[in-house]
């Protein structure tokens, strides 16, 4: 037999003698054994070869993986993003140095891979940690989700955060968090936005933003039928300042001007917002030394002139720049919506034109675009000015109109009525100047002068020995709402020595139209001092009768318009009757004003009016004439004095 396996050959040789020959019956089994030996060698060789080859292959693969790993590590380390890899349970698997730096994670935490300590360290730095932790929890619940958001830090930094699953083939095994610091970028974006809408020098809105706001305001005003005013300012002779002191200096003036404008406007806004809807006033710099103001809280067009005057006044004080005091004035043009234009460009153009007129007229003042507004304002201002003078010079005088008992005809009271002895226009009635005094705030000194004078006069009559009567003084709503109104009344009574029951304060119905708690309190406290309270012009307004019951009132004065037509107009008669029956049921006195004819008088007497006031019986007269009237009455009714 050929090709005997070497081991089998050796075994045969060793264990049997050389000369041994296999018996024929064993030859087949010997062949099978030999084949098994040979096959076993072949199998083993092949197995060894394959193991050797595959370990070589795995070694090569390993080297390649190391290369890839080093490439990945180098890539991750060279990125400017902070990267953190965690497994599905949140355990830290990998991170780059940038991550540790960005989040200021102490080395003892990161080295120990303590994920909860690291998370706490992260949360401590965030402005809204609870939102972040919620997001983290959500993402653990959804391992396959990707997410992105911005993180705001307590120290002002802003990070972009990406989070995406880490997958091996399709299977999700963890999560990669990456953080990108975009603080600088965000700041730049904000700055660009600011630059796009705001003037860099003054931080005021620029022309673009102003026009946009004006456009919005026009749409709003159109819808709600509101008035708008555009104020256009140009500094007078600013070029000369620039040429003399240089542009830097000029810039500082512009900054100071914008500062003053803004502060002043903010004050106006705060005041107007008490009643208004909070529509913001915009101050803008259009460029150069041109500024614009958009006024949105106008009740009437002339309100704009008050703001304009205030702005002119702002420039009466010098600007303190670089140790210099600089006097600078401004010329102002104004255009009104809807009268002077109904779109942005027309309004701006007309305000600009008005500003040039102001300059032509000698600077440092303002001009409306439309002439009639200018005239109206002019008149108003001259009136306001002379009113101010009158208050100083005591050009006012009180006239007195008696109130008579309708059944006995005796004098029961007297209404004090102010007259302005105008040097040029002669005697003026309150209708012509009280509204202006209210607008300009002059009502306060005028009002207290009236109260004091009326009280003094009444006391004087009492001292002269006339039977005591009450004096009625008209009180403006503005006066009534003053915080110290109660004190000033009490002080006046104290100073003049008039007992409170001889003073009647006459309030217009408008004060009581929508009474607040303060109104009730003031009235109640007034009433408690003993002062009488009357409601003027009753029936004209729309008082809630419900309130009337709660108000501590003594007298209702029927508005003169009803009295005037009482004979010819059955409606007016019905109203007068209703007022009288209302007063009776509420136990109030009724005085009819403006009684001019006998017919009116006898009708009112018939209906049971308590008091009568009017030209028929007496017009308002001087204190001296009133003294005469009292004397006459004293002669008629001497028994009163016994």
């Amino acid at each position, binding site marked *: 037999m050929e090709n005997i396996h070497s081991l089998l050959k050796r075994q045969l040789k060793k264990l049997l003698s050389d000369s041994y020959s296999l018996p024929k019956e064993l030859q087949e089994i010997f062949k099978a054994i030999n084949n098994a030996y040979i096959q076993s060698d072949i199998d083993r*060789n092949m197995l060894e070869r394959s193991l050797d080859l*595959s370990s070589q*292959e795995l070694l090569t693969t390993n080297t390649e993986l190391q290369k890839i790993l080093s490439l990945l590590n180098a890539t991750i380390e060279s990125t400017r993003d902070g990267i953190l890899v965690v497994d599905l349970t949140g355990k830290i698997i990998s991170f780059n140095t940038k991550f540790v730096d960005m989040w200021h994670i102490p080395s003892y935490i990161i080295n120990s891979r303590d994920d909860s300590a690291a998370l706490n360290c992260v949360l401590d730095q965030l402005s809204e940690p609870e939102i972040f932790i919620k997001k983290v929890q959500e993402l653990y619940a959804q391992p396959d989700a990707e997410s992105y958001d911005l993180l705001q830090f307590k120290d002002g930094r802003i990070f972009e955060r990406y989070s995406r699953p880490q997958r091996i083939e399709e299977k999700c095994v963890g999560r990669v968090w990456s953080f990108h610091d975009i603080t600088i970028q965000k700041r730049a974006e904000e700055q660009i936005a600011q630059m796009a809408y705001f003037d860099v020098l003054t931080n005021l809105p620029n022309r673009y933003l102003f026009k946009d706001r004006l456009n919005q305001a026009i749409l709003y005003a159109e819808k709600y039928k509101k008035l708008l005013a555009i104020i256009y300012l140009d500094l007078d002779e600013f070029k000369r300042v620039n040429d003399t002191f240089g542009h830097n200096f000029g810039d500082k003036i512009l900054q100071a001007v914008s500062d003053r404008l803004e502060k002043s406007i903010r004050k106006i806004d705060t005041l107007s917002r008490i009643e208004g809807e909070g529509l913001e006033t915009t101050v803008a710099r259009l460029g150069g030394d041109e500024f614009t103001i958009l006024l949105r809280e106008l009740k009437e067009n002339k309100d704009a002139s008050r703001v304009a005057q205030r702005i002119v006044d702002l420039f009466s004080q010098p600007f303190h720049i670089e140790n210099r005091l600089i006097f600078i004035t401004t010329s102002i043009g104004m255009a009104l919506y809807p009268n002077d234009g109904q779109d942005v460009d027309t309004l701006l153009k007309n305000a600009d034109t008005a500003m040039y007129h102001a300059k032509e007229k000698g600077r440092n003042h303002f001009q409306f675009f439309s002439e009639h507004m200018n005239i109206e304002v002019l008149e108003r201002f001259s009136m306001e000015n002379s009113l101010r003078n009158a208050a100083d010079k005591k050009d006012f005088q009180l006239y007195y109109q008696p109130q008579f008992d309708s059944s006995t005809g005796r004098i029961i009271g007297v209404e004090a009525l102010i007259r302005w002895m105008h040097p040029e226009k002669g005697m003026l009635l309150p209708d012509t100047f009280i509204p202006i005094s209210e607008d300009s705030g002059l009502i306060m000194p005028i009002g207290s002068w009236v109260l004091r004078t009326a009280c003094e006069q009444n006391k004087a009559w009492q001292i002269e020995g006339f039977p005591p009567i009450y004096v009625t003084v008209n009180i403006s709503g503005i006066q009534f709402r003053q915080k110290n109104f109660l004190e000033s009344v009490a002080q006046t009574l104290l100073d003049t020595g008039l007992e409170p029951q001889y003073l009647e304060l006459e309030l217009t119905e408008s004060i009581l139209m929508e009474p607040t708690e303060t109104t009730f309190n003031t009235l109640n406290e007034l009433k408690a001092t003993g002062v009488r309270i009357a409601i003027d012009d009753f029936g004209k307004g729309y008082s809630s009768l419900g309130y009337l019951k709660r108000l501590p009132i003594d007298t209702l004065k029927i508005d003169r318009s009803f009295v005037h037509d009482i004979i010819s107009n059955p409606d007016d008669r019905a109203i007068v009757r209703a007022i009288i029956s209302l007063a009776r049921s509420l136990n109030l006195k009724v005085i009819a004003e403006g009684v001019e004819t006998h017919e009116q008088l006898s009708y009112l007497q018939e209906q049971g009016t308590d008091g009568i006031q009017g030209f028929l019986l007496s017009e308002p007269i001087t204190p001296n004439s009133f003294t005469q009237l009292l004397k006459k009455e004293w002669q008629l009714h001497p028994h009163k004095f016994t």
Partner: protein
Amino acid sequence: MRIDQKIWTEEKGWLPELSGRADETVHLLLFFGSTHILRRRILCEEIKKAYPNAHFFGCSTAGEIAGTQVTDNTFVMTAISFESARIQGAKVELSQTVDSYRAGQLLAQSLETNGLRHVIVLSDGLCVNGSDLVRGLTENLASEVSITGGLAGDGERFEETLVCWDGHPQNKTVAAVGLYGDKLRIGYASQGDWDSFGPERVITKAKGNILYELDGKSALDLYKLYLGEQAAGLPATGLLFPLSIRTKDSQTSLVRTILSVNEEEQSMTFAGDVPGGSYARLMKANFDRLIDGAIGAATKSYEAIGSFSPELAILISCVGRKMILKQRTEEEIEGVRDILGEKTVMTGFYSYGELSPFNQGGICALHNQTMTITVLSEK
């Protein structure tokens, strides 16, 4: 079920001898033999006379199984008379116009569907894409019909395989027999138990069942490298290293073995699909594990019919296993015998591919390097 098994060899003729009288009760004659023996017309004529009513169903092999014996160059014949079960069979020839999928489809469509329980398929082992064939069958059969079978073999030559449904055995043929009958108990299982080793490689170039490249390098070169001297024995020696194929989205993997090699194209043809983009690992055998695999398949099929000895067991085992096991090949058959018991008649062959679900009730697939067992009983 009455079963009679005979073996023919050149030296000894029929053992036991053929009876002089024709047996007209046999329904199915299941036979396996080496290619050159199946070519002997005289032998076929002789059998035809002995079993005039039987349908002939068989194929060439890489080793025949009769009882616990594994032989080469024999003709193993199992004559089956069913008590109540019926059979219906068909064959198709593979051609330019009939590809593997179409063949499966035609066979499925030719079988009466009413009462069909199981289909046993014997296919050409060299010209077929087993995966396509299985798809053609499964897509055209009701889902409750199970399929098992195998790819015919040609020893370790890989030259020509023959398949027969009645008439003479032919190459490029696929045959199927459908089993009908409520009382028939059918169990089946397939198990390989080869071990993957070395790195996982990506199939970077492949088309159907033809593999060109792994990890961008010639697959054939890789095989030659691993086979060393044995590369001379390709394609047969390629069976020593089957491929474990795992598609990207699948957790389980299939085993594929080589059918042929094309040196010019630097390609290797496998018995079933090797889809591009899938992962492949070389596999190697371990004697004990292979034998345990055969026992595992036996146990599963045994349990599938209710844990009793079946009347007939058809064992289809891969030629790759035989090439590894060599003298120990019969150990895997003995392992199967230990499970199924002495009463079971066992036949079968060493194949170029196995068709079966892994487990009872699963979906049929082409396997390589497995022991696939189909057990039948009418009790």
